[in-house]
């Protein structure tokens, strides 16, 4: 892979542009394919979609006595022993599928970097089309085999809830590429992969179709938010680009206020030199009943911490509420013991608890 990366760097002049790197990759595939066809004309069977054209009209047959048949796209594969031919075909189809799905997985990871993605989908994207191609190779044109396989596959309950519709499209593409490769139409599979990738990249780069908020607000607000997203000034990256871009000015102000308040409380107020912060940790408590949780947690904090204060309560319909306590921890007991005591205080109302300690926050800040 380092060699491959170096080759890509060399070919793209070190550009990180995904479009340029994809373009180079596809040109590289075309070059390899042309070379392969030049050396092994019989490989044309993999690209001709013969199994698809089986169902079409006038059809030129392979000339078994004349070796120049490849001149019009006809290939004589009869010179190969049938089993060897089958092995080579299956191998080439599956490798071809993998080669065509690799850039799709890169595009998927690149476009989901900000929002996060499931590794299982990336793996599925690479493996699923290979399996589909294999199944199509097995089924060939046999209706009986197709029904048998449908029955077998129906027995395997494969269900996955994909969070994002776009993930579903990637899985559909994987199936499409697998099908095309399975009917030995790798050309169609390649075009599908190429068009899909560039479409996805374009849509992603231009943020096409994003639901507009208030138009005036968008004009006023989009530029500073966009600058924040682009992260050109060396500031830490924004973890959720989509979320940030949908914030209204009011919501963004409220969020900033909250950040400042917590920061001041934990790390000391800005402008106050040597000002010792009153709190050095945030305790978040997940609770099903807010009042019951307060009654249970606060006596524990009274006993185990130097001081504490309820900073905020976040409630969401259908979900447990979260209580945020600002806490000044003592040297003893340790934060683990405090957490344990909080959890033990009320198993009915307290569903979970965790600390964010100022030292850790400082450490994260310096690492960034």
């Amino acid at each position, binding site marked *: 892979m380092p060699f491959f990366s170096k080759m890509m760097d060399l070919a793209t002049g070190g550009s990180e542009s995904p479009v340029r790197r994809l373009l180079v990759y596809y040109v590289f595939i*075309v070059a390899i394919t042309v070379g392969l066809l030049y050396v092994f004309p019989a490989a044309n069977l993999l690209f001709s979609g013969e*199994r698809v054209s089986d*169902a079409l*009209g006038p059809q030129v*047959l*392979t*000339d078994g006595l*004349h070796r120049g048949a490849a*001149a019009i796209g006809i290939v004589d594969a*009869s010179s190969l022993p049938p089993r060897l031919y089958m092995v080579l075909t299956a191998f080439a189809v599956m490798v071809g599928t993998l080669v065509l799905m690799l850039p799709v997985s890169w595009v998927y990871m690149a476009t989901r970097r900000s929002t996060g993605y499931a590794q299982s989908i990336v793996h599925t994207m690479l493996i699923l089309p290979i399996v589909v191609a294999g199944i199509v190779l097995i089924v060939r044109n046999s209706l009986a085999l197709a029904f048998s396989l449908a029955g077998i596959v129906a027995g395997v309950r494969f269900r996955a809830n994909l969070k994002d519709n776009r993930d579903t499209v990637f899985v559909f593409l994987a199936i499409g590429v697998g099908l095309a490769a399975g009917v030995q139409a790798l050309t169609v599979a390649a075009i599908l992969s190429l068009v899909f990738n560039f479409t996805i990249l374009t849509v992603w780069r231009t943020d096409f179709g994003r639901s507009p908020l208030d138009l005036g607000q968008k004009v006023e607000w989009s530029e500073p938010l966009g600058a924040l997203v682009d992260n050109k000034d060396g500031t830490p990256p924004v973890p959720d680009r989509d979320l940030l871009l949908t914030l209204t000015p009011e919501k963004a102000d409220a969020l900033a206020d909250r950040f400042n308040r917590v920061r001041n409380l934990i790390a000391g107020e800005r402008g106050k030199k040597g000002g010792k912060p009153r709190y050095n940790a945030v305790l978040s408590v997940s609770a099903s009943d807010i009042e019951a949780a307060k009654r249970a947690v606060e006596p524990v904090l009274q006993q185990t911490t130097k001081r504490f204060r309820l900073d905020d309560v976040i409630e969401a319909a259908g979900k447990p509420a979260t209580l945020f306590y600002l806490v000044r921890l003592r040297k003893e007991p340790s934060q683990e013991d405090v957490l344990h005591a909080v959890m033990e205080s009320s198993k009915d109302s307290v569903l979970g608890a965790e600390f964010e300690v100022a030292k850790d926050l400082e450490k994260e800040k310096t690492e960034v």
Partner: protein
Amino acid sequence: MKPAAGALLAAVLGVALASCSPAENSAARTRTLDERAREVATRAAEADSAARSGAVSRAPIALWILPYHYAEISGLTLTPDGRLLALGDENSEIWEIDYRRGVVSKRFTVGDPAIQADFEGLVAVDKQIFLMDSKGRIYRTTEGADGTQVAYDEFDPGLGKECEFEGLSYDPAAAALLMACKHVGKGAPESALVIYRISLSERQAAAVPIVIPIGQLNARGARWKKFEASEITRDPRTGNFLVMSSLQRGLVEITPAGAVVRVSDIPGNHRQPEGAAITRDGRLIVADEAAGDRPVITVYPSVGS
């Protein structure tokens, strides 16, 4: 995008578009197919010339490898105007194959929906086409255009218990269909070559079939324990019938009356020859089912000796 990358993309697109030019591809295809036809004619002429000087060639003059779709090719016949029709085993699909150039010219299906049966024989009689399944049931239809589904009618001569049929031909002198048995059921020795005649006007089998004991065939030099026919076809030059056996790899030529003229091996090396036809200029066309490989149509310069 830099100019170099743009130029590269343009070059790739240009090559792709150039290679996709339909007109050029069509012209190239026509040229190559014409060249094929010339080559086949040349090989045939050379074989005829050799035959005139006493050297009978058993080498094919054409060999067409068919796609997987035609794996179950099981019957061949020539139309009155010399076009080759082939039949699929199970899906009642009939294909017109240009055996001089190696092109499937058209495909049509019998019945809507297509008849599902174990088809084993095909013969063209004037404008009618007859299909036969392994139980001896006869289906009558006509030639359809490419991609169409044609109507049919059917009748059962009631020979299903007599034998398993594989091979259908037509005797114009008797106006009867000839149905060759692969596995003889009763009424004749198992090892014999048995052929039933079906009068087209009466749609009934003749009272007595043609029965040729295996000893009569072996007396001509063969060494078969039995003869299981896979195809029967008429030689338009002599009016005799050629019966082919896929399992015995043999050919038997008989007169319409059932007298054995000659026996021989099938020329070449065939996996599973299930169809045969003889052209008016004496070329023998043999169709092989896929049998784990690819279906093949082979054209020999003559029926052989």
